[in-house]
């Protein structure tokens, strides 16, 4: 085979994504055009929503849990463990963050740390513990990753409302009466539209740091290379003397840590955990999986996709507030899910790590 054919193949893959990105852009331009031409029509409303600073700021906020879960999913899957339980990790950390804050007392500070931040770290810890369980089950006991991931999701889906009922008598927690709040950077936050980046939830800043940091770790550190090798050809890693299990444990725990940040930020941003039906996480963990597939396992790409999905969600919420047109809310709420479905159908053929989903045995059976 020649190099040119491979380049061409990469080009087609790239063009897939380019088409999608271009599609999104042209839809936006289409709306913009109509909106500018007929400012008083529904298109004008659309345009106003899409270009408003508050949509941007809620899109950023909504992309936090998806982005963090997607970053986590990248580390886990790149290391060779498909983590379909991200949804569960988000649920458990969202719940733990709120209940810990409530138990400590929302107004308390411990060692100079406000209770809400203790809750934040407790949420992360719970997610890390859950992912440790998942890692042991998958790596040590060679469980099937997909089914174990489903189990993590279903356990969290049962456990959080169960514990909420035990503590509060209902599946939702009480409202803490406090949230993570916003950190406002003076001057910069006054910039029109883009000022939303500098007047945001602390978790948004964390996300804006975590995305490039994740990219750096994956691509520029020895650990990142080992993670990639562990998912592509674990035997290659093993034969040069790097412990594959250890790399995979690290990848899964890191996914627990990152998803935990997302889950804590989700519930503490609202000050409450909502536990009915699919809980307040409501599929964000699964959307995260699609986000990193769409972003081709690149943290920056995954963030782009998460931001796109979150943007849809934000626009959808704002759209519900526009009076005078009759599309039912529930139908608008399906937009992100349908988009995910369409995206997945279009980029179905993603190049996943060669050995993801497979157990790794050193091959010796007598020790």
């Amino acid at each position, binding site marked *: 085979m020649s190099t040119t054919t*491979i380049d061409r193949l990469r080009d087609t893959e790239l063009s897939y994504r380019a088409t999608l990105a271009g599609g999104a852009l042209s839809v936006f331009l289409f709306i913009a055009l109509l909106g500018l031409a007929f400012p008083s029509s529904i298109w004008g409303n659309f345009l106003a929503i899409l270009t408003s600073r508050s949509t941007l700021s809620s899109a950023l906020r909504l992309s936090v849990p998806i982005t963090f879960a997607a970053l986590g999913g990248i580390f886990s899957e790149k290391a060779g463990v498909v983590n379909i339980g991200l949804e569960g990790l988000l649920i458990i950390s969202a719940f733990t963050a709120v209940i810990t804050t409530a138990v400590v007392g929302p107004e308390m500070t411990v060692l100079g740390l406000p209770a809400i931040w203790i809750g934040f770290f407790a949420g992360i810890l719970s997610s890390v513990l859950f992912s440790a369980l998942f890692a042991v089950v998958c790596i040590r006991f060679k469980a099937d990753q997909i089914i174990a991931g489903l189990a993590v999701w279903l356990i969290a889906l049962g456990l959080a409302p169960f514990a909420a009922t035990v503590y509060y008598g209902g599946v939702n927690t009480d409202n803490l009466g406090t949230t993570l709040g916003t950190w406002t950077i003076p001057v910069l936050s006054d910039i029109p539209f883009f000022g939303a980046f500098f007047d945001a939830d602390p978790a948004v800043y964390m996300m804006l740091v975590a995305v490039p940091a994740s990219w750096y770790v994956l691509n520029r*550190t020895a650990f990142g*290379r080992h993670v*990639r090798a562990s998912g592509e050809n674990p035997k*290659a890693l093993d*034969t*040069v*003397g*790097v412990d594959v299990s250890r790399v995979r444990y690290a990848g899964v725990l890191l996914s627990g840590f990152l998803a935990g940040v997302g889950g804590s930020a989700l519930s503490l941003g609202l000050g409450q955990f909502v536990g009915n039906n699919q809980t307040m996480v409501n599929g964000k963990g699964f959307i995260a999986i699609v986000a990193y597939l769409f972003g081709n396992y690149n943290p920056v790409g995954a963030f782009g996709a998460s931001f796109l999905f979150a943007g849809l969600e934000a626009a959808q919420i704002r759209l519900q507030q526009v009076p005078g047109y009759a599309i039912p809310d529930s139908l608008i709420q399906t937009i992100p899910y349908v988009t995910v479905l369409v995206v997945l159908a279009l980029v179905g053929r993603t190049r996943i790590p060669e050995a993801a989903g497979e157990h790794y045995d*050193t091959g010796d059976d007598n020790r």
Partner: protein
Amino acid sequence: MSTAVHLDEITKRFPGVVANDDVDLTVERGTVHALLGENGAGKTTLMNILYGLYEPTEGTVHVDGEPRDFDSPADAIDAGIGMIHQHFMLVDPMTVAENIVLGNEPRKWFGTTVDRERARQEVIDLSNRYGFDVTPDDAIEDVSVGVQQRVEILKALYRGADILILDEPTAVLTPQEVEELFRVFEELTAQGKTIIFISHKLGEAMHAADDITVLRNGKNVGTVKADETSNEELAELMVGREVLLEPKAEPQEPGDEVLSVQNLSAKDNRGIPAVSDVSFDIREGEVFGIAGVDGNGQSQLVEAITGLRTPTGGAISYKGRDVTNASRRSRIADGMAYIPEDRHERGLVMDFDLVQNGILGSQHSATFAADGRINWADARDHAERIIDEYDVRPPHADADAESFSGGNQQKFIVGREFEREPDLVVATHPTRGVDIGAMEFIHERLLDLRAEGKAVLLVSSKLDEVQGLSDRLGVMHDGELMDIVDPRNTTEEEIGLLMAGERPDTAETDAEPPVGDAK
């Protein structure tokens, strides 16, 4: 001359199998030592023990005169041993340099970051020192198999290996690349390195090694000097009795055309063209062989013919009808038998027993399922008949396919396909992994089918097999059918050149630019 490696009475048992039985092996420093034997003779197991992948059940490993106890490859690497496995241990999307330094990355900024510049430079230095021609920034998936092998060797050298073990290094190379590899061996031994290579090819061992150790059924049956022995002696050591080395088909007048392939093109799973413009035909009572290094489009060609891959161009006609886009099922129903190259993936459902596997491909046929309901009693009789006639051991129709040895799995597949009463048999690597007895049996059965007037398409990377059995022989390189030759009047060297992509008559006029300067 000092001893580099000494294995002392090594025994290795796996559940149910004794892979190595009391094996002694001594390798001198600065020499090339060939470990020769049939498939399953225990060569790879022995070398995995030396490399610390397996622990010996009994016996000791000595390196440089010191007894060593390796817990893992890391220990073996520390002791200066490097192993190049048959399946390369490379990470495809990463670059050459990234692969070479994997696990030993040079770092900067307090160890936080890989020093990519230094890694690159070290790889270039190493590569120049041994006269290797590799580019550090190429991705592994973009370079040829020969280059990948050199990357593997560099990887071992980067880790300070003095003793290099190569498992079947020539299996994936063209004859010309093999020559290049043997030149590398000379360069390495000249600089004091020791080389052990595993092979089942006599000629190679005779050609490249200083000493040859022959393993048979897990035992060392003799170590000889290459210049004091003969092919015949080695062959006898390997199989324990005199064997017919090359099956020879008696010439026979072929009948009507059964299969005709016209200008066929196909792509592989990644969408890269793998078969381009291939044309040939096969007639009744004829064996058409296809030779070539693995991965030159043979698999995709066979899949297009058997209905597992949609061609991107050209036409296939079978028994006078166009079947270019006919379904796999209709081709099976029409008497096309197919021994696939990968029995674990395709040929057998590993978790089904032999009764169920016996009807794979016939599950809709009138014989076993007249009205959509499978007649399991008939299926059982059928499986037992195959087991009986093709000597599948142990003779348990109820055992899962997975529980049989590779050779017996293959015999069952061959039996199932031959019992279809086919008009065309497509056999890819039909004797891969089977013992000598089964190999002879399968060869005889293929020639029987030919005598009965069936058409046979035989694909094999074993040149002696295709050359000995075929009436006409096509040679594939990079998706093209280079030429169709008469195997009885063509030398192995001529076929080797074709396999390497050189047409003797067009070599001068070929538009390809000259390759590099003389070394």
